[in-house]
């Protein structure tokens, strides 16, 4: 890949992730699938007259589609969720209660007892009630990821272009790899304290104390690394192509839908079934194991499985909605930007949901 192509991938990704400009409401199109009906239900209900809305709601219920809820009254799959938006981080409880945490980014500890967060030039470990356990000053820490057992954990994070690791009690912070790509590190679920990260042209698996496990060339400029929960599959997710590796780093296959862009992917917990979201032509789609489960106009932001794998959260900035998908059932929640206090509710930025038990 030439420097020009590498740079273009980064620029294109930044362009796709920027806040969209306000646009005209998409037109109502009746498409022949339940997924398509969900699109119309979610986007167009507000524009219908009360009688029209009633008819539409009846049709929607008949095919398992609910009208978009105005608020996030509860998490359909239970558990707790960290909603990471440009405006900050929100903790969402199973009953829908939301509390803002004063951080830029956050991620759960392995058992959901704590969060590791970033705030300016600081890495912070706190409990979900906001009590800070320790802080570590590092330049621009990003994408902290926490793993381990109840008694022995590690946190990997990026700082100033380098990958660093610190113990869960805030001690032993050290450089693990310099000049890595700006991709969140991904701990191997099958090997304790072993983390995958991306460098130019390759993915590397290394133990927290520095031992190289493997390094594999990939033909993807990744923006995400996603393990299956048994550590036997690693999805190297690029904008147009996803390379699937096994636990030893061997390439098992490639997912590259012709014409697709803006891909995101996540393995369903406990399985090797991959959910893939991306843009195809003028609309975006979500497929689970290759089967189309939802399609809609505009851009999807990200996807996340509930801890048990029953629900798939799809963020949909274009429609200012979150979608909770369960089989053919679609539970849409609107007004997301307002609920998570975006600075400009007219142009909702991407909001990522991170689910825990």
């Amino acid at each position, binding site marked *: 890949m030439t*420097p*020009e192509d590498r740079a*273009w991938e980064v620029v*294109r990704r930044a*362009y796709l992730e920027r806040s969209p*400009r306000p646009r005209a409401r998409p037109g109502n199109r009746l498409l022949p699938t339940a997924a398509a009906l969900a699109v119309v239900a979610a986007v167009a209900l507000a524009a219908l007259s009360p009688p029209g809305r009633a008819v539409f709601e009846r049709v929607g219920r008949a095919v398992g589609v609910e009208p978009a809820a105005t608020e996030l009254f509860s998490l359909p799959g239970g558990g707790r969720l960290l909603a990471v938006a440009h405006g900050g981080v929100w903790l969402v409880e199973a009953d829908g209660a939301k509390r803002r945490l004063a951080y830029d980014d956050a991620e759960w500890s392995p058992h959901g007892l704590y969060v590791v967060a970033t705030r300016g030039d600081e890495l912070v470990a706190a409990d979900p009630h906001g009590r800070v356990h320790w802080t570590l000053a590092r330049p621009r820490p990003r994408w902290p990821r926490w793993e381990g057992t109840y008694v022995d954990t590690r946190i990997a994070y990026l700082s100033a272009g380098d990958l660093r690791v610190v113990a869960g009690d805030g001690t032993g912070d050290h450089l693990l790899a310099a000049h890595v790509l700006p991709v969140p590190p991904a701990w191997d679920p099958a090997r304790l304290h072993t983390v995958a990260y991306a460098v130019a042209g390759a993915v590397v698996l290394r133990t927290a104390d520095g031992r190289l496990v493997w390094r594999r060339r990939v033909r993807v400029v990744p923006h995400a690394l996603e393990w299956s929960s048994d550590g036997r599959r690693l999805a190297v997710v690029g904008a147009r192509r996803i390379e699937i590796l096994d636990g030893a780093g061997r390439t098992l296959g490639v997912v590259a839908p012709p014409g697709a862009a803006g891909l995101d992917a996540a393995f369903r917990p406990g399985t090797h079934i991959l959910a893939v979201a991306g843009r195809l032509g003028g609309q975006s789609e979500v497929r689970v194991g290759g089967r189309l489960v939802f399609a809609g106009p505009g851009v999807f932001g990200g996807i996340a499985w509930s801890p048990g794998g029953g629900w798939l959260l799809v963020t949909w900035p274009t429609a200012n909605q979150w979608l909770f998908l369960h089989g053919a059932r679609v539970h849409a929640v609107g007004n997301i930007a307002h609920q998570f206090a975006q600075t400009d509710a007219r142009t909702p930025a991407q909001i990522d949901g991170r689910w825990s038990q």
Partner: protein
Amino acid sequence: MAERAWIKAAQNGSVDDLERLFRAHWPRAYRAALLVTNDAAASEDIAQEAFLAAVRNLDRFDRRRPFAPWLHRIVVNRAIDWTRARRLRAEVELGEHVASAPDVEPGDGTFARIGELSPEHRAVVVLRYVLEYTPGEIAKLLDLPRGTVNSRLRRGLDRLRELEA
């Protein structure tokens, strides 16, 4: 003019037109950074960062203005900053920089010697003789008096001639 159409379309969400804009301007932006920094990796970062700045400011960009001078201003200023910073770092990291090979292509004639100039002289020579801006335009791009640009050009060229002799 195609460029204005690309910018307008990119402002309205067209990735394809953003790519046309990027592909049209990348080679000169990268080459300008390379000639100032003499470091391929840094040049890639600098040119890429300039395009990222363009993306961040895309919605506010005035389409009546040409894109290239705006981009080159960012590229050249950042390349000068990077080169100055490297000189400072070299005092404590000399071994690392001695080990790195120069990245300007061999056979590049006069421009292969641009690395011998100071960052300030490199910048004006590159803007004048590679990117073909007039001294008046360079003065605006770098926020310098026109006389300073002219004197840096003259001294830069004199130094290049000395090196070639």
